[in-house]
């Protein structure tokens, strides 16, 4: 039971690491990394749930019948989510660069202190 759901354990593990980093770190880059790890855990959740036991890649080959295919839809969905994640990350990083330019630091506590 516990091992059978190992993928969920992995997902939860990653998710917690990500959320913890996101909340606990003052460094803005680390925050983004945390966000990425968090999102990745969700990607894995989606990808693993598309797996049908004994299933193979959902590519039709002529003449081969009676094959169990994995569900491709979660993969397609998560492809979109990955793209969104990339966009979020790049926007976040570009914000970090501009924050660095404006404040001279990317540590959140220093930014708070240095308020005009």
């Amino acid at each position, binding site marked *: 039971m516990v091992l059978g759901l190992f993928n969920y354990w992995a997902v939860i593990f990653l998710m917690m690491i990500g959320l913890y980093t996101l909340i606990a770190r003052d460094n803005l880059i680390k925050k983004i990394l945390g966000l990425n790890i968090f999102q990745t855990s969700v990607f894995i959740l989606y990808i693993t749930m598309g797996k049908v036991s004994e299933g193979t890649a959902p590519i039709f080959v002529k003449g081969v019948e009676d094959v169990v295919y994995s569900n491709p839809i979660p993969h397609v969905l998560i492809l979109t989510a990955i793209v969104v994640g990339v966009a979020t990350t790049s926007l976040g990083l*570009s914000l970090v660069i501009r924050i660095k330019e404006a404040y*001279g630091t990317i540590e959140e506590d220093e930014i708070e202190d240095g308020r005009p």
Partner: protein
Amino acid sequence: MDDRVILRVGAKVLIPFILLFALYVQFHGDYGPGGGFQAGVIFAAGFVLYALIYGLENVKQVLPPKVAYTCAASGVLLYAGVGYLTMVLGGDFLDYGVLAHNPEHGQHYGILLVELGVLITVFGVMVGVFYAFAGRGRLDS
């Protein structure tokens, strides 16, 4: 980077294949794994590699930032243009079946065109993002 001969030569050899592979992924996308997203990223990777080895300025001569941004925008237009075309031809939005006499062929064309739009956009965006970050002066205090 001038003295890194292996990198320079290796990149020179690799880049055409990277671009070709991108196109393979693109045009194979309607029946096999692949498609515009992946192809766009791979295509952009070729340019990024070139920039890493030969410097940002050189790659900007090949592909000025403006062109990259234009690509990002026009890919979306191509995508939406196909959608409009299907509507003009009497189908629903993105109903590729109406693009050719035979709906199956229509599906082919439609997916290819749409994926091409995706490729152009993703490529433009990836290169654009790369330019935006790489072009930034270092901020050593």
